């Protein structure tokens, strides 16, 4: 494992998902995870936490993932933090068909297993 823990912010309205994802990532002691279940507070939390990577759910009530991403990208301090979208509304085949990018941003299709997710995270945090 590398020295410093990588800080990952997870924005997803599904509480049990964020809790389990945090548990999974943190037990491999490479990550420090912060979770956000209310998308309207995502920007503030990101400014405070200063993540190195953001996992962002697409379909959320109140504020869709796309809008959250726009907020994050508009912030000079967060602009360079990679965002990976997580969504159930897209198939793996479609993700790979467009090289894992949709609208220039990377996507991971739900459901995803830890093995694959870790591979993606490692690729972006390397």
């Amino acid at each position, binding site marked *: 494992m590398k020295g410093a823990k990588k800080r990952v912010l997870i924005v997803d309205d*599904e509480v049990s*998902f964020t809790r*389990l994802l945090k*548990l*999974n990532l943190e037990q491999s002691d490479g990550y420090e995870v912060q979770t956000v279940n209310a998308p309207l507070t995502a920007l503030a939390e990101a400014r405070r936490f200063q993540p190195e990577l953001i996992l962002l759910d697409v379909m959320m009530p109140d504020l869709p993932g796309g809008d959250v991403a726009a907020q994050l990208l508009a912030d000079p301090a967060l602009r360079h933090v990679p965002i990976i979208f997580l969504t*159930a509304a897209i*198939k793996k*085949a479609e993700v790979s068909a467009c090289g894992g990018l949709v609208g220039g941003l990377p996507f991971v299709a*739900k459901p995803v297993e830890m093995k694959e997710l870790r591979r993606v995270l490692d690729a972006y945090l390397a």
Partner: protein
Amino acid sequence: MTEVEKRYAELMDHLPVGVYRNTPGDEGRFLEANPELVAMFEAESREQLLGCRVNDLYVDPGQRKVFCEKILRHGFVREHELELKTLKGRRLLAEVNATLKRDKGGELYIDGVIADVTERKRAEADLRRACAELARSQKALKSTMRQLLASRDQLEQAQLGLIQAARFESVATLAAGVAHEVKNPLQIILMGVDYLDANLPPESGDLAGVVGDIREAARRANAIIREILELSVAARLDRREADMNAVVERSLTLVHYEAQAARVQVVRDLAPSLPPVLIDTVKIEQVLINLFLNSLQAMAQGGRLTVSTRVERARDAVRSNGASTVGEGGEHQFVAVEVRDNGPGIPRELLPKVFDPFFSTKPVGVGTGLGLAVVRKIIDLHEATIDLANGAEGGVRVAMRFRARSPTTSVMPVPDAPKRQRTAIRPASRKAAILEAR
């Protein structure tokens, strides 16, 4: 005149048919004529008629010759039709019944009755014409009727197709909505399983098995959802030139384990060099795997799975797409792929249903009934054709035809298939894993 003679004379005078006696030959003349005959030929008087040659009453004297020959030979004529003309030149059609007689001096003469059948003949001709006309219009009517029936059948067929398509689409759309909803809970289950798996105490025994079972179940559920979405999402094809034989080989590799487990012999009958086809190889592999799995599942006690490819030439059997090339004489080249098994086949009454989404005869957990629905959808997207039937020697025979890319026969290199991520797979979930790896 005697009383008898008078009666006969009176009879003759009033008969509404022409009665005559004349002599045969070119110079033949009338010896007797009743008033009806005089009127028939528009003569001024009986004397005028008796004064003229019989030949003069014929439109064509040749007919008279024929008439005389006939009566000289047979001694009589019955219902003999003649074209005659009156002394004033009006034409008439006459029907004659006559007998040949010989007088005491040995001279031949003819006694006959003659009826003007002009009107009757005209009516008959009119009737015949009307009949012919009727027959014609009846024929036209029949063919119109046939056309109508045919187009009604076509319409019904199209309507059925539409209903089928609509039902298919609505089932697929509904299912897709549900599928998306199911993905999130599945995600939680998989995350939970990952966490449990990573935290199992060493020597956990049964626990590891239980966790593994849950993971398998979640993956299977996910594979089903994937299939459902495959149906509904307007799938984008990533079409490239590919060699069908290579696609067949790769697909066979992926079901190698199942084939062995079912003790099924796999027979390859691949044409040595196929023209390239423009296909989404991943999706066509999915098609083949679905067909292979169906066959393997039908032959759980062993059997033979035959895959053949060959080049076919045909006139436009498949909707044209821009990429196709027309060979000589408007013929197209097709790559035909056939998957055959010698399992039990499909009961006739079930054949029309096998492509329906969710139609399955397999127990829950084994079959979702989406395999062939997905196959059909993918084949349609490729503008290819698929034909599923029971084979002549039993088993099921699935024939597909893809339009060849160009008339050249060289085998094109197949672009690298997307990297497959392979995990250890248990037989029951082999298909799920194959789909998972997509």
